[in-house]
């Protein structure tokens, strides 16, 4: 914030307490800045304001001014006279104005909330024991905090459709719906796929998908996140685990270079769901559905979980020493991955330096069609990390025919592959069989099956580190669950290999230590410590790479600097 913006802030009075807010802030956010809460259902900071839940009613008043003279009206004791609006107003649709007074705890406001809660609960089923939202349900929370505490309703509740399938990933329970319309607005405004709407009137109002349509877009599960009650539930997470058991860990979505901020919910080493984490600079409060299923790779059938030499299980030290023998003094080629963390890519570069002789290094590029939102064209989460750390100096290609050529010519004895399946990148199995392969990766694949040494690696959920997204924003992710039994912790695979190769100074296998090393090596990271990277990430200078034609098109909070050039190319 610059000085000029600081001056523009306006004073308002929340329960007689002065707080300065930006002009245009609505009262829900303004009151939140005063450290108080205005309960609300339909209001969502990233959606338009409709004001149909009526839960955020507050009393509002402005200091009076004499119409004739324009002088401030004063009470007998000389304090400014507040002209209170005779009826409560909804805080979400009221913007703060200079000198505005707000009452959030007056008897009238309390009575309003009790009334609204009572109406919302009239037709709400007593489903909490079987409802997936229980524990993170706004209706439960506000019923306890602001509700009447008992029911006067003796009539029969309305019956509405339950267990309705809205789309492949979303289930709807209409009885639980409180008609906040957040999901409808999300589909219209963010997903740009308007398929939801209300039918019928009054207490029979029902949320449905339009006839012949279904909620199937790649952002559909965000409606589940923003649903304040359990009306919309995820078919994947439905009835799997109660939310109060889940340990929440900050993570990053690895499916593209957008790097959506996520929260991983796990219990006892098993991941149950991935939800978006708010970051106003990257993904607001959204994430694509495709990124939420990525946790399944942790317990996949083909997970690589043991160190082995030619298929024979062995200890990590044995695997490392054989790997070092295969790498040292031979003609080596290295294949890195844009899915490795920045730290791993840097350590791989150090491994390359320890091998010596400047072995050719490749990275497997992955591109897809960007959707202009939170799925970019570059499907590697960390291509920029590889470039920043000096592992590669040009953009990766999807097809490694240069490497295939090199192998075919017999120019390679040993191939160090970190986390990629080369048969998917244009190198044939027969070609791979001609070289000795040291494979580090999370899963079995065609490359690992012909590898001499297999070194099991950790998925993004099992280690801490950083990724650099399309904005050159360094974002941290934390370890959510422990890795498979027997796999070395954190960055140990790389640091041990480095030690075995005789890489000089030993590096402790933690991201903070690797960052301490990197800050001297990578100019962009010179002033950055791992510990200092905030939750929202830290943008580094990209001037050195302005010449590279990155494939990403515009998306949320991202406008490629070279858009014209790419379009022209």
């Amino acid at each position, binding site marked *: 914030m610059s000085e000029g913006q600081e001056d523009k802030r306006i004073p308002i009075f929340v329960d007689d307490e002065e707080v300065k807010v930006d002009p245009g802030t609505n009262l829900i956010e303004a009151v939140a800045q005063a450290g108080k809460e205005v309960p609300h259902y339909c209001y969502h900071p990233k959606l338009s304001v409709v004001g149909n839940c009526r839960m955020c009613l507050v009393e509002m008043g402005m200091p009076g001014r004499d119409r004739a003279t324009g002088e401030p009206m004063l009470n007998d004791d000389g304090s400014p006279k507040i002209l209170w609006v005779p009826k409560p107003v909804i805080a979400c649709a009221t913007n703060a104005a200079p000198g505005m007074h707000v009452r959030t705890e007056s008897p009238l406001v309390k009575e309003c909330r009790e009334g609204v809660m009572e109406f919302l609960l009239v037709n709400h089923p007593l489903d909490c024991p079987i409802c997936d939202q229980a524990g993170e349900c706004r209706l439960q929370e506000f019923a306890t905090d602001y509700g009447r505490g008992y029911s006067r309703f003796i009539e029969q*509740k309305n019956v509405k459709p339950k267990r309705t399938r809205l789309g492949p990933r979303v289930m709807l329970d209409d009885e639980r719906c409180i008609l906040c319309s957040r999901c409808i607005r999300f589909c219209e405004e963010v997903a740009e796929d308007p398929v939801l709407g209300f039918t019928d009137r009054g207490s029979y109002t029902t949320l449905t998908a339009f006839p012949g349509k279904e909620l199937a877009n790649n952002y559909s599960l965000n409606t589940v996140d923003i649903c304040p009650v359990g009306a919309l539930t995820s078919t994947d997470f439905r009835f799997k685990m109660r939310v109060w058991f889940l340990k929440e860990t900050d993570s990053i979505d690895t499916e593209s270079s957008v790097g959506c901020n996520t929260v991983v919910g796990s219990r006892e080493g098993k991941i149950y769901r991935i939800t978006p984490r708010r970051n106003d600079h990257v993904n607001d409060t959204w994430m694509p559905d495709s990124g939420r299923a990525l946790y399944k790779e942790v317990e996949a059938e083909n997970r690589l979980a043991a160190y082995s030499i030619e298929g024979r299980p062995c200890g990590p030290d044995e695997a490392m020493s054989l790997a070092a023998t295969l790498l040292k003094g031979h003609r080596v080629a290295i294949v890195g991955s844009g899915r490795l963390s920045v730290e791993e890519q840097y350590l791989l570069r150090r491994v390359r330096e320890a091998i010596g002789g400047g072995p050719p290094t490749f990275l497997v590029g992955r591109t897809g069609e960007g959707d202009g939102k939170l799925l970019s064209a570059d499907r590697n989460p960390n291509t920029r990390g590889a470039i920043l750390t000096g592992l590669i100096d040009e953009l990766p290609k999807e097809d490694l025919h240069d490497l295939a050529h090199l192998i075919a010519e017999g120019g390679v004895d040993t191939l160090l592959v970190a986390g990629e399946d080369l048969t998917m990148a244009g190198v044939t199995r027969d070609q791979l069989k001609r070289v000795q392969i040291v494979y580090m990766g999370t899963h079995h694949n065609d490359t690992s099956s012909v590898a001499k040494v297999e070194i099991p690696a950790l998925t993004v959920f099992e280690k801490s580190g950083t990724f650099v997204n399309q904005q050159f924003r360094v974002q941290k992710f934390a370890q959510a669950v422990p890795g498979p039994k027997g796999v070395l912790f954190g960055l140990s695979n790389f640091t041990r290999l480095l030690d075995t190769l005789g890489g000089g100074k030993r590096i402790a296998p933690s991201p903070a230590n690797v960052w301490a090393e990197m800050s001297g090596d990578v100019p962009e990271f010179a002033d950055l410590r791992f510990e200092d990277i905030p939750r929202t990430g830290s943008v580094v200078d990209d001037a050195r790479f302005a010449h590279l034609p990155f494939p990403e098109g515009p998306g949320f909070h991202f406008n490629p600097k070279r858009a014209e050039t790419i379009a022209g190319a």
Partner: protein
Amino acid sequence: MATKVVERKPLSLAERSYLPQIVSGLRVTMKNMFKPPVTLEYPDERPDIPPGYRGVPTLVKDPDGREKCVSCQLCEFVCPPKAIRIIPGEIPEDAETAHVEKAPEEFEINMLRCIYCGLCQEVCPEEAIFLQDIFSVTGTSREELVFKKDKLYALGGTLPDSHFKWEKKKSAELTGNPHH
């Protein structure tokens, strides 16, 4: 330290004969011989269990044979020694109790951990778990003492449902206040 000599009274004739002592002792013996016994011949005879006794936790079914547990996992959450383990599951849509939607796929109580505190019974919103009158649990292996769902239902039997919440729900779906 000064010593004090305590004078010892000489015993009377009756005391010296021991007879009064023997008689009073026999009186106690006789009295107990003809009183009804206070002990139980335990394995053959069983004590009366007072209401509210906290015995082995069990799962119960309602009079229609529907399992009452909906696997909300509140007992698992509240259990102080973490003896309860539940894997929630979904009731298939064609089942008779499909309107309940959720039932436990597996329900385990580790009786080696259970401390019979009764918090699970207290917290259950569906009145599905009860500490009943079984007080003696034995087994020959650890696995045997981890009670599974079928064993818990066998021990629990049927208890009347005083709310009929789900029956009311089903009848409302069939008749009352329909959506058009």
